[in-house]
Each structure stands twice: as structure tokens, then as C-alpha cells.
């Protein structure tokens, strides 16, 4: 799998300029490669981050979902060696300040950290009962569900990438 992933990483080329927030993910000596064949159906960009010629250490995926007011653009980072989510970031949103606007708050985004990429996250309203539960932002269920949907979409896509690379 690793060999195949390395080949994939090496073979990829970027037709568009890589955004700054993606470039910042690469440490010294690392490069970023776009994996366009894994884009589509709400996933607008997929990148592999790592040292060229070595297995990538991170998958970065951008997805668009419909929020309460308008679309929300989400960046989902997955640590490849552990298969856990490393971070979720909101790249763009138009939600109302008093409600879904809390979507960019670190305390909400932290709820997505360290989740197993092999699972499906579930939105809950009051308190998390299992490790796959994500507690909604108070009073902003639509927005919260949208972000959970976006992350789940990226987790499914990540599993597809891993599976196909294994083949």
C-alpha cells in the first residue's frame, strides 16, 4: 500500500496554484501533491502532504456543504500513519453570527480532532455518549450537521483512497 501511495503521490501534479492554507501544512522538505482523481461529489480538492519518495503523512481534503444560510467550505486533515483526524478547519461560511457563526470556534472544531477515519461521525444535541458523537453548537443544529456531513464525506473519500491504493 505504501509503495502504491508513494507512486500516487509522485505521479500527481497540480494544475492550479496550491492555496496558502494548504502550503502551510507542509514542513521543511515536504511537498504537496494534488490527487484530482479523488475529487468530485462535494470534495473539491484532495492533497497528499509528505516527503517526496516517501509515504505521505497527511491527507488534506476540501469539501463544500450546504449550511443554514449558504455553503460552508471545510478543510479536513487526516494523519495517515494513525488514520485519525488531525484537524478540521472552516475555510468559508456565511452563517449568522449569533447562531452558526460559532462554527469557526476552536472549541467546536476540537470536537472533530482524533476521530478514527474508519468511522462515521454522528451529530448529537446535548452530550457526547460515544467517541463518534459530535455535540452540536447550541442553537445551530443545521450548521453543525453540515460540518459533520462534510467531515463524513471526507472520511468516506479517505477510505476509498486507502482502499484503492491497497489494490
Amino acid at each position: 500500500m505504501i509503495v502504491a501511495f508513494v507512486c500516487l503521490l509522485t505521479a500527481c501534479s497540480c494544475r492550479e496554484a496550491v492555496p496558502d492554507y494548504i502550503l502551510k501544512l507542509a514542513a521543511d522538505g515536504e511537498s504537496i501533491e494534488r490527487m484530482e482523481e479523488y475529487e468530485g461529489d462535494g470534495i473539491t480538492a484532495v492533497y497528499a502532504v509528505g516527503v517526496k519518495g516517501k509515504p505521505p503523512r497527511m491527507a488534506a481534503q476540501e469539501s463544500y456543504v450546504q449550511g443554514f444560510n449558504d455553503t460552508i467550505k471545510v478543510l479536513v486533515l487526516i494523519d495517515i500513519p494513525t488514520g485519525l483526524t488531525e484537524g478540521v478547519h472552516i475555510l468559508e461560511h456565511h452563517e449568522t453570527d449569533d447562531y452558526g457563526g460559532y462554527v469557526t470556534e476552536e472549541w467546536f472544531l476540537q470536537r472533530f480532532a482524533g476521530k478514527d477515519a474508519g468511522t462515521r461521525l454522528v451529530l448529537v444535541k446535548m452530550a457526547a455518549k460515544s467517541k463518534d458523537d459530535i455535540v452540536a453548537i447550541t442553537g445551530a443544529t443545521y450548521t453543525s450537521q453540515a460540518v459533520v456531513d462534510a467531515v463524513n464525506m471526507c472520511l468516506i473519500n479517505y477510505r476509498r483512497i486507502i482502499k484503492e491504493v491497497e489494490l
Partner: protein
Amino acid sequence: MGKPVRIIKFLALLLVLTLAAAACSAPAETPAEKADPAEGQAGGQEGERIVISGLESTDIEVTVEEIKGLESVTVEATSVSSSGEQNHYTVTGPLFDDLLKKYGKSQKDLVGIRLVAGDGYSIEVPPEILQNRELILAHTINGKPLDERTRPIRAVIPEERSMYWIRNLARIEVLESAQKAEVARVYILETLISQANAEDYTYYESTDRAVKVQELLGLLGLDSMPDTASFVAADGFEKNEQLDIFSKGYIKFTGEDAPLFLSPDLPKGMYIKSIYLCTMGDAALVSQEMAMGVLGTKQVEDKEGVDLKELIKAPGLADADKYLLTAADGYTVEISRDDREKGVVFKNSKGQITVFFEGLPKSTQVKDFLSIEGIE
């Protein structure tokens, strides 16, 4: 087969095809039929209506066309959010009062109405507002038709809190005059809550503790359930809520905005922050902590708390010659009317709400003070 027969068959087939084509070209679903009322769809579309109940023996359905056909006013209106933020709008629509006139009523004569949105959000508008403010059934805001989530009508009460500006108005309930029951027993909210099963409730970034209102109601053991619960918040905000809505929620008693009425199934605009007083029928629940801010404090020896006399007076507990104080464990103490002003209600070092009487025997002290009522 003869030629005339074939012509007849051809014409018959043509007729069938024509009818079929006509049927296919009619919309299978009109937008109004497709619309989910909860999603706030379809303003001004044919067949849309709001329901007015309580005016006559049966519900009245008023179409949006009818509403738009009434004379409209255009006003510069300001809404005030719960945080005090003001927003200014140019609002156009007929006055609710003009709609009422069609049914021989006047807004000023109503004792209360409840505005209900398509998503279930609802709020009661008290008589003070109905008598002093205009209620506009807005169909245009800032010169533009209402957006998808706001259509078909937005209730607007200029210069009032934004909680009264109801998007996607679905129903207006005209309320009957309710006889306000005299308060017979005052409960200390903190002690009552301590008797219930608490659970985690995530509120924004913090995990706080909350109890089910239904369980609190069970602990009160009210003889009869009133229709509404009346709230006063520490900042003076007043609100009535239907008991069937209140009973499905929670009281969050730790963290920000506590005591806070909320529910995962209610829009945030229906939450009630910093509850100081809640009256249901002849029972009143008072938060000792909030009362310290609202009623002020008094110091007795090293104990700082609320004056018991004030705590009795504020919720409207009827005057009595004697009062019975009850603790959560059932311990009771009887005091005279004159002893009321010797009492201070404070939180002891264990966090228990306690009543202490200056100059009275120690046995009159009530820890985990649950309630007080007048006795013969």
C-alpha cells in the same frame, strides 16, 4: 377493418394522447404543495395562508393574498437583540389591527397573543405590548420580498426585542384572559434542582449540568397543571411559556446564563437566561442566587443572603400569620409573621441554601431550604 372505423380509432387515439399530454403539462406538484412549512417556503404563492385561532369558535385561515390586499404601512423599525444590539429595517405590511377589524376586534382589547412560526418557534406577546405597539404583518423588508426562510409573512413589532419578530409566521393564537392564581407556596429553585437527577448538557464550549423540567414538575406535585409558566429573568425580562413546551425542556443550573431554560429541540430564541422567578399556577420557583442580584442582600452575622421577607413578598406569596418552612429532607419549621424579617436566605459552606433567623433558636435554621408557605 373499414376506413370510417379506422378514422374513428385514430381520432379516439388522438383524443387520448391529447388528454394525456394535457395532464402531463399540468404541474404535478405546485411549489406550495412541495413546500415543507417548517422550512419556511413559498411566500405569496397561491394558497398560502396563516391561521388565526381564538378569535372565533373555529380557526380562521387568512390567505397571504388577503393580507397583502390590506392597506400596508411602511415604517422604519428597530429590533433589539437579547445582547442589546440594535438593527434597523424598513418594514412594509398591513397592521394586524386592521386584519382584526375585519372580525370586529381590536388589538388593544386582546389580553395576549401567541405568534407561532413554521418551525415551531413561538412566543407570547403580552397585553402591555399589544396596547402600546403596532404589530405589522410584514411582506417586504428593506424594499425586498422576504427570503425563503422568512416567507410568507414576518411578524414585526417595531422597537421590541427581536424575539417578537417571527419569520415564517404560520399561526396567531389569540389568548383568553387567564385568571392569575395567587401564589400559595414558594420553592427555592436551587434546592428543588438538587433533588433531581442531573445530566451533562453541552452549552457552547462548556459541559454544564441540567435537569429535566418534567422531573422538577413531578417534585412539585402540583394539584393541577396550569397552561402557562411565567418567567422573570434577572435583567427584568418577562416571558410566558406554554407549560407543554416548558415541560419538555431542561433547566441548566451550572455555567454561563444559569439558571437557563433550554431544550435541544427548541429554537435558541426560546431559551430563557438567568431565571430569577418562575410562576406556575399557585407555585413560584425563586432562584436564591438571582434573587441576591434582584432583591439585594442583607448581612446577618457572617451570613450574606436575601432577606426572607423580601423573598416571600417578591413572588406574591399571600400574607399569613404564620409560615411553614420545609427542608428537602422534610424537616419543617414554623415561624410567625414578625419573624420573617429576622431571616436571611444564604448559601452555606456546603452549597446548601439555608435560612438563618437572627435571635431565634438554632433549631429554626433550615438547611436545604426547599419551600415556604403561609399557614392558618
